[in-house]
């Protein structure tokens, strides 16, 4: 089976590097971007199987807006989105209940930062098996 491709969009380059190594250790092809514009470009060109998105980039809602934009686009609307966040601490938003709300937060699942490698891999595998 062709190895799954994952795009990580996060402005924290150190964390992105760690995530990339973890995913590559399980033979995923990983492409990274450090901002919203770069991320959109990579998603359009690479057509990934999964998107890992940080919520807070240049603004605290960058990730939300990008997720909405992706889910409205016919080319990317079926790609599962896993959101990485520490934003709950700043906003009090309950991701557990909001993830999956197609209007407000159109993402498939979320993980709170910091992410343990095992948890990341299991969540990625779960989302990919659902979408395939």
């Amino acid at each position, binding site marked *: 089976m062709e190895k799954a491709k994952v795009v990580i969009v996060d402005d*924290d380059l150190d964390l992105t590097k760690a995530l990339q190594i973890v995913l590559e250790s399980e033979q995923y092809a990983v492409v990274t971007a450090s901002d919203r514009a770069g991320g959109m470009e990579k998603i359009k060109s690479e057509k990934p199987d999964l998107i890992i998105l940080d919520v807070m980039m240049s603004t605290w809602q960058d990730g939300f807006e990008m997720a909405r934009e992706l889910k409205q686009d016919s080319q990317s609307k079926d790609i599962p989105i896993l959101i990485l966040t520490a934003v709950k*601490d700043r906003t009090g938003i309950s991701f557990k209940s909001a993830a999956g709300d197609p209007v407000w937060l159109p993402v498939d699942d979320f993980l709170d930062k910091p992410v343990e490698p095992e948890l990341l891999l299991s969540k990625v595998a779960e989302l990919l098996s659902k979408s395939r």
Partner: protein
Amino acid sequence: MELNSQSTRLAKGACWMIRLRWLAIVVVVAGTYFSSNVLGISMQDFALYGIGVLLAIYNTTILLLLKHFTRGQIEPPTQAVKRIINFQMSTDLLILTVLLHYSGGIENPFVFYFIFHMIIASILLSVRESYLQVTFAVSLFGLLVLLEYIQLIPHHCLHGFVVHCLHRDGLYVFGTFFVFVTALYLVVYMASYVAVRLRRAEQAYKEANVQLQEKDRVKDEYVLRVTHDIKGHLAAIQGCLGVVVNKIVGSLNEEQSDLINRAHNRTRKVTYFIKALLRLTQMRLSNNLEMDSFSLKNTICDVVTAVETKAQSKSIALNCSIGPSVNEIFGNQLSIEEAITNLLFNAIKYTPINGTVEINAREQSNCVLVEIVDTGIGIPQGELSKVFDEFYRATNAKEVEKDGTGLGLSIVKQIIERHNGKISVDSQEGIGTKFCFTLPKTSCSKV
């Protein structure tokens, strides 16, 4: 200290006057009966009892009027309440004058009871209004004395109390009236002086309190900002260390592996602490918590299932008892789950092997009472009042578990209080601890 708004303070003052008036009615009726029938003083019994009845009708009317203005309002209208107080005050002075007319006029030593009204006016009303009331009182009494003196109205002499009628005795009338007038004005001057100073002090206290709250909010914002930024860096450090610890980038020798593991563990502990601090600060800053109906019964069962493995690892018997009527409550499910999890984890953590931890929930009037009881190390009596303080850890808890944030119980307390609930703790060192909290079943209930 509770800080009332001016309107609430005035409304309370108006109610106070009504209560005092009931007392005054009893004094008038009982005093008339006693003076007339026991002391044998000549009294206008019929008129005085009639005034007592009128006072009762008037007091009931004022009570209803006040209830009408304040019904269902957190902040009763200030002007309306002030008008009621002024009206009560003026009517009281009028009634007291009529009462005095039928009970000896200037011969009656109760004339000085006007002083009480003047003190009440000074406490409740403005300085200007207080002086208007004292002038009204002096005018009323002056008119009564004058009309009786010039015999335009009859004088009801207090035979049995005075040897002969005094209303025509010029020197006595003038002297008593002079003392009466000066006493009343002096009382208003002194009481107003004290009342104004107290009002100013209260205002300054209120302003200082607002400033303190604002400073506290700024401090919380600062803590939130700093801890959030620290958490971002910690997440990156932990992420990178996680890759090495899990040997994803290859194996290390034993010494290297030990050091990296130590660094990873310490980072996890700091991250846990920062997360707890963020959670607490975020709750302090957030004014609203999303509330909905949810099953407390299911939530408790879920938490018990989640902590079961931890209890089993220490051979601790974990018992759960939920009353048949405990089910749906109104609140934030995730927060309540977090609070119960925190308390149960604590109970398991501080209970020795083969101990018991219980969670009981039952209905209590319009609330649900939840108890978490353990046979753990307990909390020293002298430290019980501090266990909910931020960063506080009981001395014996530190011996059992070196690392701890001291924030868990503060978070629990915040959560319960946000739901208008109450939390308490009872403990005996070496025997065990019982945490109890109540939660209202519906949104409008107060505990």
